């Protein structure tokens, strides 16, 4: 999870990502930032994130992102 936190902090250091559960709903992460984030996550974890996974539930919180990464790793994508 720390690796994801590092990526997020690099994108925008002014946000406390550990406590937030509304990163997409509150527009903290906009669609351009999410595309950058997806690209970084794919690189860091050697996974492929399909468009169907890019939904608020997976990006609203650090935990949601971590669960999605784990799921992608398990499915071998």
């Amino acid at each position, binding site marked *: 999870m720390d690796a994801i936190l590092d990526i997020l902090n690099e994108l925008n250091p002014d946000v406390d990502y550990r406590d937030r559960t509304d990163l997409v709903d509150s527009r903290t992460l906009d669609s351009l930032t999410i*595309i*950058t984030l997806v*690209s970084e996550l794919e690189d860091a974890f050697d996974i492929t994130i399909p*468009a169907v996974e890019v939904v608020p539930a997976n990006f609203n919180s650090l935990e949601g992102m971590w669960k999605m990464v784990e799921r992608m790793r398990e499915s071998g994508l």
Partner: protein
Amino acid sequence: MKSYFSLTVLALFLPATMLCYQLMPRRLRWLVLLAASYIFFWSISGKLLVFLLISTGTIWLAGIGLDRLLRERASRLRAPGANRRDIKRRYARYMRFVLAAGLVVNLSMLFAFKYLSFAQRLLAPLATPLLAHAGITFPQEAVALAAPIGISFYTLQAVSYLIDVHRQSISADRNPARLALFLSFFPLIMEGPICRYGDTAQALWAGRPITAENISRGGMRILWGLAKKVIVADRVNLLVKTVFEQYGSYDGGVIALAAVLYTVQLYCDFSGTMDFVMGCGRIFGVTLPENFKQPYLSRTASEFWQRWHITLGTWFRDYVFYPLSLSKPVKRLTSAARKAFGNRMGPLAASGVALLAVWLGNGLWHGAGGQYVLFGLFWFVAIWIGGLTEPFAQALCERLRIDRASMPYRVLQHVRTLAIIFVGELIFRAQGGSAALGMLGKLLGGFTLESFANGTVLGLGMDAADFVCVGIAVAVIVAVGILRERGVSLTTWFWSHNAVTWSAAVCALAIIAVIFGAYGAGYVPVDPMYASF
């Protein structure tokens, strides 16, 4: 019934639908909504109803086809010794075919009604001489087809339904009549919001009883929308119409004023209609997605589109931007861009391809015309440049020790964003691409306040009292928006008090709308603006 705010709808159609709905047994109430929706559609578009039926039928069939393929695939995958990879690949191909067939039929109808004439105009200079060599005459007379009401809205809903079934985020509806209601629900059909089946459909056939609270609060929302329309949108209509239709006769100052007033008008008309839609949905116990969240409080161009016509923006984001950005060719481009521009700028630069597609699509969705292409390109540039320069802005502010949360910085951001919005709406309202460029030219090259000083602006359809009235109304709307932004709902506040306070609030709003509404001699009421898109 060309407007939701017509007397026929408010005094006859809506009450009659409510009465029939409430009298019907709960499990059949959704059929009343379906019948009312088709009557509403028929009253505006007549026989063009057949195209809504074709859309509904083809989308239903394609959904059922996808559902069947998914079940078949699952059963084959369970069979002993199954070649899982081969089965998955084969069924993915079949499913793509069914999805494509459904999309092609529906998008072709949209294209035929909205863009055939535009395509004909574009192709004529090239096709006419080429076909002449082959002895064929290219049609010179414009092909103008009257489009069914709401085709742009229900087609996007139909497309989202089918893609969601394909993505397996929802199951296909086996009942065509229920799907028909989702695609035609009368409050949504004219101007949206563009709903998702997974979020809205269930509530449509739940048949929840109409309660006194829902009638009161839904009615209040409708009244608020009506007030915005008649007090502001209708009042500024004559000035906006005059200046945009004869912009050559006016200086840059008047054009700037018309651009600002048109933005206010569009907001009050469109969000006012959305108030009707939300209020109507509430009466029938259906919570619909909000289309506006105080867009005038945006600090960036990107934020504006997360607050303005939200359901159109999220549709393009989910079904165009993300799939394109995460497609193999764009990912290859992203990898190359990351090597060239670094981890942060690379993906931003590469996402420009998807963003351009989104904004050309968004512009053209509004209509076939040069001004809509320009409008799309304008917002693409504003948002993409905003994204690309954000890291530099962050670094610069840190270096200069500017607090980005401070009031002066925020005010500066609001002013800049409002200026971008006004220019965008000027392009949007212009009578064609060249008129948009002409108006922008006058704005930049011929800006003067002379027409304000000599009183010319007061002779364009709005007198001083009209300006004061619009000014006060806009201030009230902004104040209510700021309260809403802070989590304070005036409706909830009035509702939480006794019946007398509530009734007084409703009566006050109704009286204000009647007294300050712009109707009668000297005013031209505006037709529902988004119904024509």
